[in-house]
């Protein structure tokens, strides 16, 4: 038991030193140790003045390092029966403030807490961020004169404050009045966290709706609903109809004896339906896929039904007859675009790659499942019965986990490395903002 604790302590120590070294290396002007002194000074000007000379000076920082770092990790580890939710996170933070009245090592604690937030699922909770900011001692770091505000006053603390705000930004959390109040109390109006705050206030409102195709924050867990969402997301035509061709059979009922009942959900717009109806039955159409689509941190796979583009000599140009209407022109002879690079002829349904007739998402990517989709499509597209369908299924195509997770369970939540997930999340954020 004791040696286990010792290992933990040692680990904490090394981490602490690592932190110091890294800050020193990254060019921050002060390492952790030096700001302790001024902070002490400031504290001493406040309520604790009579105590400070009594405390023996030399052992203090050492004990502080050893004792302050170890409990932080422990605060998050001591959650009862391993439940990790908002309440236990708040409890941990409160434990810290109660345990450490002088808020010693609060910067480390805040950095730690920021890292832990995702584990506790509170990374989008504004109240938690405000709670973290509240850990900072008030009034202490405010610049008192012009030189304070010109030179970075309490840089490590300010950086920590910025880190909190940055994490809020990355998760799209809009700071509120309380955040502002806390920041002015902690760092004052003329500080870098405050600048960051003001910028967030300005740009968040402007960029809030910049993504015309927003993905809901909480994705549905049900693969059918998720597929529905993904298909709607891909299909630009609002009048397109989503059809569920086959509902997934729950595992319990069939008990793995009949695993070939994955969900099949397809989407087709009226224009695509018309295009398919006009398709020459002599020309084959292809089912291609699976292609991946990322919805926030989930990856789903879809297949498309498409044909090759007609060779130009066989393309029929549907033209309005010249002498059609006796009384008024049915077609205006306007050959203008507003500028030479605008392409108004571009049609999303008639792309160079050939027309796409339908999209589907299925629980399995094998031919049998997709054949069922085609069967279902035939109900609304009778011509499909006469057109040869060629399956062009690629096994690899960047499928992350199809082989490992089995057929029924598509890799909706690919257990990838944390870093990768983080990268992806950042990518999502970027694409959103």
């Amino acid at each position, binding site marked *: 038991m004791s040696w286990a604790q010792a290992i933990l302590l040692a680990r904490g120590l090394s981490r602490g030193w690592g932190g110091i070294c890294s800050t020193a290396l990254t060019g921050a002007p002060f390492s952790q140790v030096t700001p302790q002194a001024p902070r002490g000074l400031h504290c001493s000007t406040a309520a604790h003045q009579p105590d400070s000379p009594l405390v023996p000076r030399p052992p203090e920082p050492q004990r502080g390092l050893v004792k302050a770092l170890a409990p932080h990790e422990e605060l998050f580890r001591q959650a009862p029966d391993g439940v990790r939710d908002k309440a236990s996170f708040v409890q941990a933070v409160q434990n810290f403030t109660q345990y450490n009245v002088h808020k010693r090592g609060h910067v480390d604690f805040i950095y730690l807490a920021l890292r832990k937030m995702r584990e506790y699922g509170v990374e989008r909770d504004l109240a938690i961020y405000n709670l973290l900011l509240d850990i900072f001692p008030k009034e202490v770091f405010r610049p008192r004169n012009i030189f304070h505000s010109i030179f970075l006053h309490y840089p490590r603390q300010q950086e920590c404050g910025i880190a909190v705000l940055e994490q809020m930004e990355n998760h799209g959390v809009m700071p509120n009045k309380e955040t502002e109040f806390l920041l002015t109390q902690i760092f004052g109006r003329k500080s870098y966290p405050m600048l960051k705050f003001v910028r967030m206030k300005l740009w968040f409102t402007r960029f809030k709706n910049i993504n015309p195709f927003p993905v809901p924050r909480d994705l549905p867990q049900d693969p059918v609903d998720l597929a529905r969402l993904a298909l709607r997301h891909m299909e630009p035509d609002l009048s397109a109809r989503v059809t569920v061709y086959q509902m997934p059979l729950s595992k319990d009922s069939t008990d793995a004896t009949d695993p070939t009942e994955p969900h099949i959900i397809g989407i087709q717009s009226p224009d695509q339906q018309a295009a398919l109806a006009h398709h020459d039955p002599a020309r084959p159409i292809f089912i291609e896929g699976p292609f991946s689509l990322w919805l926030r941190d989930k990856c789903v796979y879809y297949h498309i039904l498409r044909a090759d583009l007609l060779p130009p000599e066989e393309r029929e140009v549907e033209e309005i007859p010249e*002498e059609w209407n006796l*009384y008024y022109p049915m077609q205006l002879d*306007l050959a*203008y675009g507003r*500028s030479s690079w605008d392409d108004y002829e571009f049609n999303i349904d008639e792309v160079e790659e050939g027309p796409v007739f339908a999209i589907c998402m299925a629980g399995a990517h094998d031919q049998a499942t997709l054949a069922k989709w085609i069967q279902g499509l035939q109900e609304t597209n009778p011509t499909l019965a006469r057109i040869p369908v060629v399956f062009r299924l690629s096994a690899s195509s960047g499928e992350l986990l199809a082989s490992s997770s089995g057929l029924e369970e598509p890799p909706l939540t690919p257990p990838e490395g944390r870093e990768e997930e983080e990268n992806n999340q950042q990518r999502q954020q970027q694409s959103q903002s």
Partner: protein
Amino acid sequence: MQAARIAPSMGRQLLRLGSGSSRSSALLGQPRPGLSWRPYASGAAQESKSFAVGMFKGQLTTDQVFPYPSVLNEDQTQFLKELVGPVSRFFEEVNDPAKNDMLEQVEETTMQGLKELGAFGLQVPSELGGVGLCNTQYARLVEIVGMHDLGLAIVLGAHQSIGFKGILLFGTKAQKEKYLPKLASGETIAAFCLTEPSSGSDAASIRTSAVPSPCGRYYTLSGSKIWISNGGLADIFTVFAKTPVKDTATGAMKEKITAFVVERSFGGVTNGPPEKKMGIKASNTAEVHFDGVQVPSENILGEVGGGFKVAMHILNNGRFGMAAAMAGTMKGIIAKAVDHAANRTQFGEKIHNFGMIQEKLARMAMLQYVTESMAYMVSANMDQGSTDFQIEAAISKIFGSEAAWKVTDDCIQIMGGMGFMKEPGVERVLRDLRIFRIFEGTNDILRLFVALQGCMDKGKELSGLGNALKNPFGNASLLLGEASKQLRRRAGLGSGLSLSGTIHQELSRSGELAVQALEQFAAVVETKLIKHKKEIVNEQFLLQRLADSAIDLYAMVVVLSRASRALSEGHPTAQHEKMLCDSWCTEAAARIRENMAALQSDPQQQELFRNFKSISKALVERGGVVTSNPLGF
């Protein structure tokens, strides 16, 4: 020279056309319609003199409208004066419209009298036995006919305004010499056969076919035409049928429309019984069947496959006559309304002293004034040799037929129960009038024509700008001009257009209103064209409003021009005309302002259009009214 001025795309058409029409009309002293033909309206965009074309572009093209044109020379005026008297007397003394209406045919004595007067060949050149009137003279006489008997006007109109107009416009010398003398004397009657059960405005769905014989000497014509005015009386028919034509470019055979002159004596021409109609009962309307009629190839009007153009030209050339007839009708109706209002006493006062009656009478006078001004403006433009009158002609037809309906309706209202009775003869006029909003292109379709033709010309200008932008340095002056125009508009300075100097100064306020309205209108046209581009063809809610405003705008300019002339020439009625003009301009400008503001910036306008769409859709789905009775059963 002429050819050089025409847009390049027209060049080919012109070449194809040159051989066809060169043989015609030197004889007639009429503008050759074939030259510079373009779909639906002629004249190339760049140098169009038409005011209506200009107003879509935000230009004040005053050449055709200011000053109010007077084209008749001394002789023509004298000749016309000599004609007006006898014709008026004939209609007052010989013709009995009520009897014609009751008999559902024109009395034989009337027909005979008209033939003696030469009324069946008013525009046929005198060498060929006609009266040889120009369009303006013709309009004046049609006005008299329209004042008295619209049923008879249809008989005459179907005969000469559309029936044999094709021979006048496109006929060869031989065709003219063969047919026109008899037609002019009224010995034979003509009819215009275009409409089919499956084809109203849709020329592509014409089913009547004309198959060339192997020897190429004749065509075999088969098919049926419906609602043919004079169908039961006519001996000469202008028939439109599909013929196989070899495309010169691709060599493929294509069905194209060709116009034929068909005599009843060719055999195989039969007609159905006269149709029972709401109005114009005096005229004969019947189905005409062609059953294997052998038509010699020399009876082709224009060229083979050029029937579409022939039909369009005949219709375009006939429209001004309708406006003239309507102006006459209104004149007659107003006289009746005034007579009643001046003599009827209620509560011890003549009813013309009541404001409501006064407003009605004033509006009637305004509408008549506008229609008359339009009719003679268009006819004069045509006589001046303008080839660019199609929008104006369509506007005059739309405006005339609707104004006449409103005036007659109001007349019945003024007359009260008396108007509803058969005896005063106003109800007959109302019945007769109804068809004028429908035939020769319904007013709705003509509105689309007005709006789209105008947009097309404006669009060409925009295309030019777009191309100029690709080479900004080569087209600096054009672009700078456009930029300054846009700047002025944005800054609210107006376009710098003004009518001062062209109109009489007493009308300057109305002139300003007209210019403002024109600027608003042009701005909206430009925005909407840029927004919808080619798809504007399908925006009929929008097009209708554009057309309405175009009509109002043209009407304003026309009355401004006429009232200006009256004021500067010191006509005895000048002050009265000034009042009519000012009142019209005030109301029309307000309508345009409101319409354009709504189109430009009212978000509810789009919602309104969507609602119209959905409501009508629901009605169609339910096959009638959707809502249930408020009582619930």
